[in-house]
């Protein structure tokens, strides 16, 4: 069976439920407006089962209705990350069992950029979007160098700490400063990384980076706006414990 409709309590009934708010006062007109709204979303019949005024100027509705939508499962595409998203526990376990030591991450914002919001969102325990930062992972050691670190200093420190990965965060984009600074770090890694030791991964993050431009920047991976600590941790585990072996 490759064609499906929504399922309420009988195959093919197409029943769905939704809730929404309209910026109008509660009353008979609001109820009718909600029914029309649902109908325009394609629900027919649309049953406004609950309406409640929120303050004097809003009304909240719950609607049940029949959706005519039929989807062909053969048309469904799933975009897959090349790595699995792991929980912190799984990340710790993978590092412990495969790397057999703590994974070391050195992070900084480079050059003239003083914005540490993104870096701290990924590294600080406080984290981002309800997820704790990398510091909270028992098996990850985080060295957060903060803002306005020089590329050479960053690489020197990464070598001293035995970094597995270097995180560079850039917010300021004036005259393409963000691209320039990342290339500087990539060049410094090439030039000054102690020979005979595996070069650390270079991870780049910031709101204006193109995830497809990693190779062009000399980086291993670019993370776009909205990236969470777990995505970064999962990527690190994938690259350092699985892909490289």
């Amino acid at each position: 069976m490759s064609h499906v409709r929504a399922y309420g309590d009988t195959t093919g009934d197409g029943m769905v439920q939704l809730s929404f708010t309209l910026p109008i006062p509660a009353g008979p007109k609001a109820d009718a407006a909600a029914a029309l709204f649902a109908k325009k979303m394609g629900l027919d019949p649309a049953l406004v089962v609950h309406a409640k005024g929120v303050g004097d100027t809003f009304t909240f509705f719950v609607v049940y209705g029949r959706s005519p939508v039929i989807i062909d499962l053969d048309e469904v595409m799933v975009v897959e990350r090349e790595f699995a998203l792991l929980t912190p526990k799984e990340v710790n376990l993978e590092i412990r069992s495969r790397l057999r030591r703590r994974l070391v991450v050195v992070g900084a914002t480079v050059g003239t950029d003083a914005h540490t919001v993104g870096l701290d969102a990924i590294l600080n325990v406080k984290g981002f979007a309800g997820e704790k930062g990398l510091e909270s992972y028992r098996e990850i050691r985080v060295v957060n160098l903060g803002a306005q670190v020089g590329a050479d200093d960053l690489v020197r420190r990464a070598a001293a700490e035995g970094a597995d990965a270097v995180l560079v965060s850039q917010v300021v984009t004036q005259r393409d400063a963000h691209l320039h600074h990342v290339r500087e770090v990539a060049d410094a890694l090439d030039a000054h990384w102690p020979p005979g030791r595996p070069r650390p991964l270079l991870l780049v993050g910031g709101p204006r980076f193109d995830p497809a431009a990693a190779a062009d920047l000399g980086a291993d991976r670019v993370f776009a706006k909205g990236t969470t600590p777990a995505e970064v941790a999962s990527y690190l585990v994938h690259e350092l414990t699985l892909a490289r072996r």
Partner: protein
Amino acid sequence: MTGRSGLLGLDARVVRRARRLADKAAAPVVELARTHTTVSVERAVLRLAGLQGADAEGIPWVNRLTDAVRADVGLEQGVALPVFDALLTGDHADLAALAQKAAAGGVTFRLPSGRAATSARAAARRATRGGIATIDRNRRDRDRLLRRLGDPPKPWIYLIVATGDIHEDIPQAQAAARAGADIIAVIRSTGQSLLDYVPEGATREGFAGTYATQENFRLMRAALDETSRELGRYVRLTNYASGLCMPEIAVLAGLERLDMMLNDCMYGIIFRDINPQRTFIDQRFSRQIHARAGIVINTGEDNYLTTADAVDAAHTVIVSQLLNERFALEAGLEDWQLGLGHAFEINPALPEQFRLELAHAQLVRELFPNAPLKYMPPTKHMTGNVFFGYLLDAFFNLAGVLTKQEIILVGMMTEGIVTPFLSDRDLALENVRYVRDACAGLTEDFVPTPDGFIAQRARQVLGESVELLERIADEGLFEAIADGTFGVTRRPVDGGRGLDGVVRREDGYYNPALEILEPEAAG
């Protein structure tokens, strides 16, 4: 008090021992705070003395002036003497004019002595008294409004707004108050805690929150005063003192009549990697200001449970509360000002989860009988199933009512998924109101079986807390923090942000605010 007491049959001797150990662990830290100052403490003094505003780059004049003084004569004697000496001996209209000239390199500061020092001290005292007088007047105004408009019954319902734009926050806060919120908290922009200055003016752009500024404080308090009059009950306003500018934000909160402030003794260290010494020194001064302003502090123990397991780490919450209490009382706060924090974060898949939550919540209630406890809703186990989340929030509300928590942060079923919709907030308030009204008076029926599961679990957590406190009192609090005792991070005493802003006080250190706030200690 001897023997066993309360519904849990806690051993009064064990409770006394826990407090003695907290006292012992806190003592060296208090000593450090009494003998050091920070750039933010000194800037707070200048704010009390009336210096406002910022330069064209948005850096406040208090920063410019403090930096200029530090460059010339250091801060070991405090900022007040050199500043007021320069003001008296030079040709400057006021502190702002002096700060502008100093920032341009046009002033050379000195440490006055003899009669010059006496005059500078008198001028600094006079100016600072002006700021303290405003704080005192605001406290009287609050008391008057509470009498005239009415103080809502407990538990107080605490709601958050966070649009990033103060002019969006205001109508949302007013709508929330009309819908039943007793306390409005304006979440700060991500990362403000790491700024070593307080932004200026009304702000309309923030990351996941709105900047804490004096003007934003003023605008929101004025709007809520209007709504309080309309509703016939006083709506309280909360913001965040934590971060690198605790002392200054505490002063601004006092000047603009905020009612509560997030102020935790270790949050900045553990979760924001702010230097431990800087945090404790800043914290003490900020709490002295809160004490004077009649502000209720909220501590942040709920955060530990979002990082660590809520069952395994239950005792770290108690230990942190006892430390927060000790530091708060030492700074002059009273029991009614201690909004000690904790949270409903045990995994709902765990058998008897609710009984465990009741045990923890009742333990906190009985350990701190006179503190207005702040109870935080589930966040870690809100999965995206908003229907289950709504149920879990109802159980949280029930636990709060049963164990007489006094400040209840309203749980959102969309926690961690999206910024709450208007309707999410309304549904959440309906949830709280239902539980509060349906279970009114149920506390008289809540009598855990003596020596039953709840009583035993509570005593076990208290026992583990005493063990941990013994270790901390023995090793030292700084060492415990460096060992990763709280949260899961190690924070060495010389690590983290802001250590360069810490200065040891020298003989002759003069701080006109401390002279007023702790007259017994003024030499």
